[in-house]
């Protein structure tokens, strides 16, 4: 990853931190807005086989209307020393690249020099530095992955990322897919673990934190057991995503070699033997794929002697999200958050090693919950299959036993079957499709719609009171209680904050190096669930929020100027379809997550 990508990361991170902290975003509300990132490459006049690149970062709307320019420039320069920033600020009257019309005046220019592959990012389109095409491509892929990780946690933030190379424009939009109707919920359904305090090693140099680092894990299976029809899939791989304060992705200093000391040992997070799994690090992480790239990846290997172990590559992926947040009794300043990022970027490994036991404990517990849910879902699926089998056999028994030809003929004709054998096959197929479809709808994402439908059946009630035979099917696999757990979870976080506030050190004290044993994880009874757009997270699935990737030729051909390029910014609001109930529910739920991830405002 070259300096371009790093610079984009740092600037975006800085902007979002500034956005969250300085702009009056009410606690619990989601960040909402749009950022434009564009890279334009032209044949270099100074170097062969190189591209002269100009990068622009701009905002749409009035996201940063309250930003004080001089202060901003000063702060951004202090953050990007390696880039030897020479920052300029183009005013509203300044000229903009043609593709950026309609965007508000916020644009950034800075220049880095002194490095072999120095690069200049400016809005004016004039660069003095050239770059190999391969390097540019790598940087773009890395940036895309970074954007994907951001929108997983900030679903109302939208990124328009465009690359223009020698006149050919390619644009991707990263953001929630408003307006799309899903036939069933294809999201992952994470389980949020309880937060634990991390210990900072004494030998870790860095700022003295006036607060604590809190790790909150979240785990989910992908594809969701609610979607997967193969209930006996084993876990095939593990993908770990690291996030710092405010839900911004962590880019470790050793990101290209993620198997640092801590993650290299696959059992450092989870005792895999408990699940009869043997995990090995997966170093084959290909940037060039249209999926979210995990920070750490493991894959399962068959353990010796376990002949029944199914290493089906179509098996499930365990997704593990590790959120490291900063909590303080005092109002957290923007630079303080930045400092935490710096600390985590450089020393996350050491911190995790120091906190190994509590980290492993809370992650293990969270994974246990997810797998238990999976197990319950698998059991419910098995019961469903068993029941359907009984139903279909009974129908076939009556059909084949009937001596009334008109009845048999009518049944065959209705399902368009030539004979009873074909009828049986079609019966099985259609029954399965219909009931599977409905079962997939029994999901907390659909719960509001379902409740609405059930209310309409007031004159003819549904079987709400089960008799003895169906009580076993009442396992809560549809997640209808997840909303309640979500609220309890947010309360649990409040308790946690209150706990830490009560024990917060005085301003003169450094962050505790080794808190007392009472920092052990809280009871799990109040664990909450959150939902994330997870369609991109499984192998072979589409990237999250990625809307469109067109060439300029396609633009001309389709006459489509709506979704592509900077014009999308101006028309974005009009393009957005009304929110559907499932989206409203999703946003409401994720707003709680954002609340957990925001810095503590203090007592």
């Amino acid at each position, binding site marked *: 990853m070259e300096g371009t990508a790093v610079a984009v990361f740092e600037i975006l991170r800085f902007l979002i931190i500034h956005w969250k902290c300085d702009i009056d975003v009410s606690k619990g509300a989601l960040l909402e807005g749009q950022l434009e990132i564009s890279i334009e490459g032209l044949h270099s006049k100074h170097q062969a086989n190189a591209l002269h690149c100009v990068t622009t970062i701009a905002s749409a709307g009035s996201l940063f209307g309250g930003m004080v320019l001089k202060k901003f420039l000063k702060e951004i320069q202090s953050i990007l020393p390696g880039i030897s920033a020479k920052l300029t600020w183009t005013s509203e009257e300044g000229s903009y690249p043609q593709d950026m019309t309609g965007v508000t005046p916020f644009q950034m220019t800075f220049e880095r020099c002194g490095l072999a592959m120095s690069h200049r990012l400016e809005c004016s389109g004039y660069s003095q530095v050239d770059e190999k095409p391969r390097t540019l491509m790598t940087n773009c892929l890395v940036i895309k992955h970074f954007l994907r990780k951001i929108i997983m946690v900030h679903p109302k933030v939208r990124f328009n990322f465009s690359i223009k190379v020698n006149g050919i424009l390619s644009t991707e939009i990263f953001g929630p897919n408003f307006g799309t109707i899903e036939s069933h919920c294809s999201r992952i359904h994470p389980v949020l673990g309880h937060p634990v305090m991390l210990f900072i090693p004494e030998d870790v140099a860095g700022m003295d934190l006036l607060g604590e680092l809190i790790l909150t894990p979240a785990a989910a299976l992908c594809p969701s057991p609610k979607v997967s029809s193969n209930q006996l899939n084993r876990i095939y791989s593990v993908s770990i995503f690291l996030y710092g304060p405010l839900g911004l992705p962590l880019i470790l200093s050793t990101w290209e070699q993620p198997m640092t000391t801590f993650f290299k040992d696959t059992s450092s997070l989870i005792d895999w033997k408990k699940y009869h799994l043997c995990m090995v690090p997966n170093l084959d992480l290909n940037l060039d794929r249209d999926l979210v790239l995990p920070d750490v990846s493991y894959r399962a290997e068959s353990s010796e002697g376990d002949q029944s172990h199914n290493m089906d590559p179509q098996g499930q992926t365990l997704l593990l999200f590790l959120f490291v947040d900063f909590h303080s009794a005092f109002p957290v300043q923007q630079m303080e958050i930045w400092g935490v990022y710096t600390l985590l970027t450089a020393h996350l490994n050491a911190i995790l090693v120091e906190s190994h036991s509590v980290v492993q404990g809370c992650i293990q517990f969270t994974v246990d919950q997810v797998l238990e849910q999976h197990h319950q879902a698998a059991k419910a699926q098995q019961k*469903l299959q068993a*029941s359907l089998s009984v139903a279909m056999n009974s129908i076939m028994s*009556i*059909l084949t036993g009937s001596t009334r030809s008109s009845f048999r003929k009518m049944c065959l004709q209705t399902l368009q079957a030539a004979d009873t054998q074909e009828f049986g096959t079609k019966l099985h197929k259609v029954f399965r499709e*219909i009931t599977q479809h*409905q079962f997939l709808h029994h999901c907390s994402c659909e719960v509001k719609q379902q409740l609405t439908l059930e209310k309409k059946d007031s004159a003819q*009630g*549904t*079987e709400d009171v089960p008799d003895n035979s*169906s009580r076993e099917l009442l396992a809560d696999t549809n997640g209808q209680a997840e909303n309640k757990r979500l609220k309890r979870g947010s309360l649990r976080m409040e308790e946690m904050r209150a706990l830490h506030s009560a024990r917060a050190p005085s301003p003169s004290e450094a962050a505790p190096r080794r808190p007392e044993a009472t920092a052990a994880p809280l009871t799990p009874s109040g664990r909450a669930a959150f939902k994330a757009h997870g369609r991109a997270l499984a192998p072979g699935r589409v990237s999250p929020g990625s809307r469109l990737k067109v060439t300029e030729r396609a633009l001309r051909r389709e006459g489509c100027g709506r979704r592509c390029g900077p014009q999308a910014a101006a028309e974005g609001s009009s393009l957005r379809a009304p929110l559907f109930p499932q989206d409203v529910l999703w946003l409401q739920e994720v707003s709680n997550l954002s609340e957990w991830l925001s810095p503590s405002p203090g007592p």
Partner: protein
Amino acid sequence: MAFAPMGPEASFFEVLDRHRESLLAALRRGGQEPPSGGSRVASSSEVLVSIENIIQDIITSLARNEAPAFTIDNRSSWENIKFEDSVGLQMVSHCTTRKIKSDSPKSVKKFALILKILSMIYKLVQSNTYATKRDIYYTDSQLFGNQTVVDNIINDISCMLKVSRRSLHILSTSKGLIAGNLRYIEEDGTKVNCTCGATAIAVPSNIQGIRNLVTDAKFVLIVEKDATFQRLLDDNFCNKLSPCIMITGKGVPDLNTRLLVKKLWDTFHVPVFTLVDADPHGIEIMCIYKYGSMSMSFEAHHLTVPAIRWLGLLPSDLKRLNVPKDSLIPLTNRDQMKLDSILRRPYVTRQPFWRKEMEIMADSKMKAEIQALTFLSSDYLSRVYLPNKLKFGGWI
């Protein structure tokens, strides 16, 4: 054919005969309307076609990409039950229903079990064989889980198809006993004579099939408990008060016992009396015979005998006979709840004397078994209590 004249003289039954006349007059005034709604005796082909129609509906739903569902009447809901003097508790014509969906995790298993039992019924009817509910449960006990599940589904199917359980070729196991002045021929031609002896006859499992019933009985006595029934047998009660019929369901009566009582009333219009313990449980059993049960209200017309009278043991008898307190038992909390429940039922308001007796019980907070009368003498029940009650009209 006359029975051996071992009973009391004819004058003993004067009050009984007048009571019978009044009952017959009431029947004539009531017009003896045929039962409406509820289940009926259906032919085998009708049952098969009904089941095939259900399957057809399911397949039609599937072809339309809709998840099939059964619509079941809420049999055990008071909102679906009304009370009529002539019938007792019966289901209303437009009752609320519930859906047993095939695409709901909560109900898919029941949906499947209903189909399973329907297919079993289909085979029974086709092959003209019969099975009890217990037999059906044991065909796959693991699948069904417990007997109650099977019982409920069979009742639901009977209610859904509006045919009697017998028409579904499902029998309920009879546990009742009968003794006295009665003879009949069973469906298979077996001649049965219930003439009182040392032993009683088991209530047959095919009530609908019995024919050629003959009796001279002046009354039918329903006895709650088998212990009391055996006691009366031992005391030769049937001969002492001949001609009469004695029957017991050994507690809560099974379907066949109720069907037989109903058949005896419909055939002979002989006064029917109950002899139950003076406790809420006994009163409830009596109400089942007389007014029917909630769960079987859809078959009320075939099961209830509203003409039944409460002969004993009345709570007022306890005071009248000075039954000592140590023979009485305090009402438990459960008894209290049951008593309160019975007092709230619609039919109790039509029975002021019954209500008064229950209020005596509630006030005293005491109950008594029939065996409490043994404090007077071991055969007081058969020698004094019952004869006096029957001779002098001591029923309510």
